[in-house]
C-alpha cells in the first residue's frame, strides 16, 4: 500500500495549512447550528411536564458531558498513535485536546450542579454520573499538570501520552465502580437526562446542539493544533512563509 499521501498529510507544513483552511468550514456551520438549536430548544420545544423549563438545561449539559468523554478518548487515541509511531502531529492533537476537554468537563459539572439544585434540592449529589465526571476532570488536570512540569516538549509529549493511555483504560473501570458504589448506597435518584420517553420535538434541537458542539470543538482544535505544530517545529524554513 502506498503511504506517501499519509506522510504528506501528516507533514507539519501541510497539516498546518490544511487546518487553517478547515477552520472556517467548521466554525461557521457550528455557530449556525447552535443558534438554531438555542432558538428551537429554548422557545419552540414544549415544556416538560415533570421538570418544567429546567429540562432545557439538557440542551447545554448533555452536549458538553458527551463531548468531555469523547475529547478524552480522542486525546488518548492520538497520544497512543504518537507514542507508537512517533508522530509529532498526533502528539500535537493530543496536547490540543486537553485544555478544551477540561473546559467541557467543567461546563458539564457546573451545569449539572445547577440542574441538580431545582431537581434534587442540592447543588451536588454523589450521583454516579457527576462523580465519574469529576474524576474525569482530575484525569484532565493530571494530564495538563504533567505536561506543564516537563520543560522539553518531546518528553512532555511522551510522558503525558502514557498517562492519557493509562487513563483511558481507567475510565470504564471508574464508571463501573462508581455505578456499583452508588447503587449500594441509595435508591435510584432522579436521573438528569431522564430515560423516560422524551417528546419527539425536543430531540432535533438536542441533536443539532451536539453536532454544533462537535464542530465548534473541531474549529477550536484546529487553532490549538496549529499552535502546537508551531511550537514543535525547531528548524523550519516554511515557518516564515506560513506564519
Amino acid at each position, binding site marked *: 500500500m502506498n503511504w506517501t499521501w499519509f506522510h504528506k498529510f501528516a507533514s507539519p507544513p501541510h497539516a498546518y495549512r490544511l487546518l487553517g483552511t478547515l477552520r472556517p468550514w467548521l466554525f461557521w456551520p457550528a455557530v449556525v447550528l447552535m443558534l438554531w438549536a438555542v432558538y428551537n430548544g429554548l422557545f419552540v420545544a414544549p415544556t416538560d411536564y415533570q421538570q418544567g423549563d429546567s429540562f432545557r438545561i439538557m440542551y447545554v449539559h448533555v452536549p458538553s458531558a458527551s463531548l468531555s468523554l469523547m475529547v478524552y478518548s480522542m486525546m488518548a487515541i492520538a497520544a497512543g498513535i504518537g507514542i507508537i509511531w512517533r508522530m509529532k502531529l498526533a502528539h500535537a492533537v493530543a496536547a490540543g485536546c486537553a485544555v478544551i476537554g477540561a473546559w467541557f468537563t467543567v461546563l458539564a459539572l457546573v451545569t449539572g450542579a445547577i440542574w441538580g439544585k431545582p431537581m434534587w434540592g442540592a447543588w451536588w449529589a454523589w450521583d454516579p454520573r457527576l462523580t465519574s465526571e469529576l474524576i474525569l476532570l482530575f484525569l484532565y488536570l493530571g494530564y495538563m499538570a*504533567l505536561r506543564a*512540569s*516537563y520543560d522539553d516538549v518531546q*518528553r512532555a509529549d*511522551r*510522558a503525558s501520552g*502514557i498517562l492519557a493511555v493509562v487513563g483511558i483504560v481507567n475510565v470504564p473501570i471508574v464508571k463501573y*465502580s462508581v455505578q456499583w458504589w452508588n447503587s449500594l448506597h441509595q435508591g435510584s435518584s432522579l436521573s438528569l437526562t431522564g430515560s423516560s420517553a422524551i417528546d419527539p420535538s425536543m430531540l432535533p434541537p438536542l441533536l443539532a446542539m451536539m453536532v454544533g458542539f462537535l464542530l465548534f470543538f473541531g474549529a477550536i482544535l484546529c487553532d490549538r493544533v496549529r499552535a502546537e505544530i508551531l511550537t514543535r517545529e525547531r528548524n523550519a524554513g516554511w515557518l516564515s512563509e506560513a506564519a
Partner: protein
Amino acid sequence: MSRVTDAPGLWALASRVLGRELTLAGRHWDQVAQPLLFFVIVVTLFPLATSPDLAQLRQIAPGVVWVAAMLSSLLALESLFRPDVEDGTMEQWVLSEQPLAWMLLMKTAAHWLVSGLPLVILSPLLGTGLGVPVSAWPVLMASLALGTAALSMLGAIGAALTVGVRRGNVLLALLVLPLEVPVLIFGARAVSLGMTGEAVAGPLNLLAAILILAVSLGPMAMAAAIRIGVES
C-alpha cells in the same frame, strides 16, 4: 567494556532484584517505617476529630482505614524510583539488556513487601481501635492485601512518570488518585460488607481483577515512563 557473560534467567533476575531491594530496605529501615507510622497516625486522628463513640466510629471505620492506607501508599511512592534514578542505578537498568518491565515489576513487588504488607498485618490492631469486630479481620486483611498491592502497582506508574520532574509530590497525588478510586471503592465496600456479615466475594473478586490488570499492563507503562525519566 566487557559484557556479563551469563545473562540470568527471568527468575534468577527476579530474585536478584528482590534481594537487592530488600537489603536496601533493611539498611534504610527508618525510611521504610515512615509510611507505616503515617498510617497509624492518620487512623488515630479520626477518633480525636470525630467522636470517641465506638458505635459511630464503626460506621466510618472501613473508609478511615482505606483512606489512611491510600495516603500512606502515596507517601511511600515518592522513594520508589527516585533514589535509583538519582544515583544512576536506573540508567544502568535501562541500558542493560534485561527486560526493564520485569525488573520494575519485581522492584514494585519488593516495595509492596516492605510498605504494603506491614500495613496489612497491622490493620486488625487499628481496626479494633475503630470498632471493627474480630469476625471482620479476615476481610479487612484480605481486602488490604489485594488493594495495597494494586495501589502499589498503579502508584508505581505515577511515580515512574514523575521521576523526571524535580518536585513531584502534589503532581504524583493528582496523577495517581483518579487511577486508584476504584480500588478505594471496592476495598472499603468489602470491609463494610464484612462487618455486617454479608457476602464479600463480589468486591474482593473485583479488587483481584484490578490487581491482575495492573500487574499485567502496569509494568509496560512503567518501563516506558522510566525510559523518558532517565534520558535527560
